[in-house]
């Protein structure tokens, strides 16, 4: 589904990632572990085209996507959930979902609005609330729902449990398992193996921009 090989990337003159190679097969939940500043977010951004790779290959369903624009990559069915949520605070919940909406795909699970609200019941009570007046956990749910509205085949999830109350972390784990059941491939960046251990099929560990041998 998603294959990365020989990926180098960085910001300006500072190289952050060195020769990253990883793979996520269809329907898998794959963890990307690493401490603060290890390069997890940068890996996901480089896959998504938000940080242009210096060299290396990224393939999505066999198609090269490195060097493509983020919107083209998203249109191929790869969703992205950023680490700091980045929901549109001036827009309502319903409008946030509308921005993420893409046409249905034959070969990916479809997420109608009812479907999304069933997965995140908290959102259904606040469709007209503006994104800026939600709690952190609600924002995180909206952020995932917004990406799912694009009916992706696979998603990149950047630290979905960060800064959330234990109860909400619990819910988050449930959501990821639900995604797996629906057949969405997930690449999940996290700091601790405690969370990923419960949801991931297998994992990679990053240290200072390099993958540790498995």
């Amino acid at each position: 589904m998603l294959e990365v090989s020989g990926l180098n990337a960085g910001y300006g003159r500072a190289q952050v990632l060195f020769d990253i190679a990883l793979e996520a097969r269809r329907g898998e939940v794959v963890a990307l572990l690493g401490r603060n500043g290890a390069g997890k977010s940068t890996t996901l951004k480089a896959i998504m085209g938000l940080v242009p790779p210096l060299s290396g290959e990224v393939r999505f369903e066999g198609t090269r996507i490195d060097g493509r624009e983020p919107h083209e990559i998203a249109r191929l069915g790869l969703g992205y959930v950023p680490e700091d949520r980045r929901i549109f605070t001036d827009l309502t919940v319903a409008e946030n979902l509308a921005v993420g909406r893409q046409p249905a795909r034959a070969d990916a699970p479809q997420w109608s609005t009812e479907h999304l609200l069933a997965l995140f019941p908290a959102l259904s009570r606040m469709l007209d609330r503006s994104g800026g007046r939600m709690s952190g956990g609600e924002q995180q749910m909206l952020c995932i729902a917004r990406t799912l509205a694009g009916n992706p085949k696979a998603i990149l999830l950047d630290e979905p449990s960060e800064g959330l109350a234990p109860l909400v972390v619990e819910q988050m784990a449930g959501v990821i398992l639900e995604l797996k059941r629906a057949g969405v491939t997930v690449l999940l960046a996290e700091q601790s193996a405690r969370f990923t251990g419960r949801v991931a099929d297998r994992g990679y560990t990053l240290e200072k921009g390099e993958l540790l041998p498995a």
Partner: protein
Amino acid sequence: MSGSAVLLQFLNGLSGASALFLVAAGLSLIFGVTRIVNFAHGSLYMLGMYLAVWLSARIGFWASVPLAAALVAAGGAAVEMLLLRRIYKAPELFQLLATFAVVLLVKDLALWAWGPEDTLGPRAPGFAGAVEIAGRAFPQYDLLLIGLGPLVFLLLYLLLTKTRWGILVRAATQDREMVGALGVNQKLLFTAVFMLGAGLAGLGGALVIPREPASLEIDLAVVSDAFVVVVVGGLGSIPGAFLAALLIGEIKAFCIGLGYSKITLAVEFIVMAVVLVLRPWGLLGRPQAAMRGPAALEAPLDPPSGRAVAALLALFAGLAAIPAFTTGYTLVLLTDVLVFALFAASLHFMMGPGGMASFGHAAYFGLGAYGAGVLLLRLAAPMELALALAPLFALAGALVFGWFCVRLSGVYLAMLTLAFAQIAWSIAFQWDAVTGGSNGLIGVWPAAWLASKTAFYYAALLVCAAALALLWRLVFSPFGYALRASRDSALRAEAIGIPVRAVQWAAFCVAGLFAGLAGALFAFSKGSISPETLSVPRSVEGLVMVLLGGVQTLTGPVWGAALFTWLEDSVSRGFEYWRAAIGGVILLLVLAFPRGVAGFVRERIAR
């Protein structure tokens, strides 16, 4: 004022506000989504006026209005696709420079197509008469305009809140990178927004032709009005623009109605200054989110190497030898280059190391020039004393204006500097007794021993070289380091005990002082001073010089000033379309070196 007069002024204000809102709404939309401060927005409005006048002679007024708006929209789309699309990743100020080049090109396009004379449009058929309101005649057409403003506001509001496209626009205003990562093609969105904004400007222009003649001077006048409205309302906020247009339209109308015509030229800028100080993000604006994406970190500036210093000394010696070879026009031109090099370097001091871009640096140049003139002519000071004291006038201005400006940052700071420059200009333009009003001051000649071209050239060379050396020395003094620390991270600088605002205020004052010195030299080299000395185009010229040379270099502004002054001199002599020529050169430079000329050279060397 009687009750009916008040009502009439009120209505006048409303109709003025409508046209203002159309332009400002477009400008605000464009800024919100693309983050480009579109200097050419007034030019699009002007184009709308000329096109409507020209078309209405052929197809009638009512058909010409939508057609002119559509043509301007198409022109806007072309500008976005051919030019702006290539430079979205370039530094903010570079984009500004590109849109300023468009201003120059459009102005000469209009000059070529429709000539230099103001052209009056037809009256609107069906709305040519007047109606009686409270016993006074009021033009029917103005009533129509009063209705049109809110109508367009309503349509825009519906577009932005009820359509998916509008929701995307609002989302992109907040975080365009995220919108892209969700699968939205930003290029198409940007082009469409630019087209809509341009169309609104064109519509605004076309609609005012029954009231005002189309003229070549309208572009910068309108764009500075629109800037004020957008900044007062809050960048990117359409309701804010509507509110601000009403506020400013009314205030202007009442100033005229009450006979305070003198203050009218500056009143909107005074309103803007007050609003920005009380509500730094405008009436309905929000603090600008930090830009997303890889941060543009400035490489640290190294002190000039021994070799660079030697090269500068050699250059100085070379310049000192020039009068041995020529005493003609070259000396006059070189004197200009020296003066503008100092002017550009002073602007660079606050923009580069200080990180504070100014759109109104000419104010301090002009204060220095007028200071010299006033000391010499009104207070009968000797020339040498006048030259020495004149920069203090600029310093005084910088002390006052700077105190307000350093409370803001980014585009808001730049706009406030523009506001202050405009206030200074309108004072110079109207205070006949002191500044000579629109005629300016004449007879500002240097003392007898400096009267020859050669002598004055030497004086300018010495003063400018000493001032530049001092300015550059300051960049590498503890003050300069504190200034750069404040630019790179205000929070961390505070934390290690740097009084950030005080440091920035001091830098503002230094920049003003040296600009004033340049202005005083300029006054004596020309023998006269006109209000143009502190007008918006002069401020923009300074920006162009700094950007041409490179913001994050030390000597760049000097080369930029030399290049620009030489270019302007050589094309403006005998070539009618010199503005277009300069605009074309700027565009070529911007497109060829999207990271600045100096950045390009540095990258080449680094490779």
